[in-house]
């Protein structure tokens, strides 16, 4: 897309309190640089994230989402991320089938000691979303029907 050089995506990052949020914290306290386009939402567990929240992020105009939880097997609540994993895969398939670029829907795992990895992931996610351009919304074509359709009696 043209004119996207200055595009600064808005990315919602849902981070698990026990791993990924601590990883973001570690990245910060280790003075690592990562892009400032993510807005962090702290959640108790990746299993707490209702897929509806992620769909709603796009409804509200986010350019992309990042969900990060504990590595499988490391969940603070034992199996929250196992349940989440199934939901996220299905959500990803759904969004892609509905025509939303898979680059906008990002899932990953990040442990509390992986500050460096977290910074790298954010870097990558921002790159991915910059590559597909701004999210124009579900209503990008406008809701009003084309005139010929109305005139044609459809």
């Amino acid at each position, binding site marked *: 897309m043209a004119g996207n050089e200055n595009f600064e995506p808005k990315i919602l990052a849902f981070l698990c309190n026990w791993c990924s949020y601590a990883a973001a914290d570690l990245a910060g306290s280790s003075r690592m640089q990562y892009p400032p386009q993510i807005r962090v939402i702290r959640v108790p567990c990746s299993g707490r994230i209702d*897929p*509806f929240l992620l*769909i*709603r992020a*796009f*409804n509200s105009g986010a350019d992309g989402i990042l969900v990060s939880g504990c590595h*499988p*097997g490391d969940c603070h609540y034992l*199996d929250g991320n*196992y*349940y989440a*994993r*199934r*939901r*996220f*895969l*299905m*959500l*990803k*398939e*759904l*969004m*892609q*089938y*509905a*025509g*939303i*670029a*898979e680059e906008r829907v*990002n*899932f*990953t*795992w990040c442990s509390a000691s992986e500050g460096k990895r977290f910074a790298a*992931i954010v870097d*990558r*996610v921002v790159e991915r979303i910059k590559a597909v351009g701004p999210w124009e*919304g*579900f*209503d*990008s*074509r*406008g*809701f009003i*029907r084309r005139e010929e359709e109305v005139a044609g009696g459809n």
Partner: protein
Amino acid sequence: METNYSEISKKIQEISRKLLEEGRVDRVIGFERGEFTGEMTPVLVTDPEEAENLLFNPECEMMLAKYLLDYGGSTTGIVAKPCDTRAITVYLAEELIKRDEIVIIGINDCQGLEENEACDECGVRNPVVADEEIGQPRQEPVETDIKDDLKDMSLGERFAYFQEEFSRCIRCYACREACFVCSCEECFVDSNQPQWVGFSVGLRDNFTFHLMRAMHMAGRCINCGACELACPEAINMRALTRNLYRVAQEVYEFEPGLDPEEKTLFATYRLNDSEQGFLD
């Protein structure tokens, strides 16, 4: 072999009468011909004398299983096509109904309904669970495929296609009312705390509604096509749900409504589940 629907209807009447007279059930849910429109409508029979009203034919398109949820604590007989028995199986797997409270009158060798495209994609032609069976079970399996007519489209074309489809949605929620999966006490579209999706009709909220609806269906939807039959605007909403059905089949080898003991897709997990598409 031609299916003899008057024969099936007679068997349904016999069995229902017997069940009601013996007191094995308090009521039977089935179909009768509607009084004014002549269409097949659901009917609730409590009197053995009324059992002769029950009919069955290829116009019986409604999913009756949803009515079972209203009659917990008493016994109910139900006339069930194979898809109804799959719906009942999903309810049993989710523990929404009790097995000993229902008597299933299953119809063997289902030929599918008129005007329902989903029936051509269905490979389940005998009841999954049944107490009383009508007709002979079909032995040879039906070769079917879940249709995928959008797979050749590019991402942008699919998005435009769904925008076109969902722009017609008038948010009447007929799809929700017809669907057996939609049995939540409070639907997410009616909730205002939190308000998941806007109440008004507009492409943005329509699209969001359909995505959320499809997400609720994942792992429960049996691809019966009731939503499309109910839709007054003929929106191809099953495209989304049947895609998820296919993904669940391919990735998790999971098909809903075939085993009452098996938990539904999102109620369980495996340690080595796929992470296809996740960032590493």
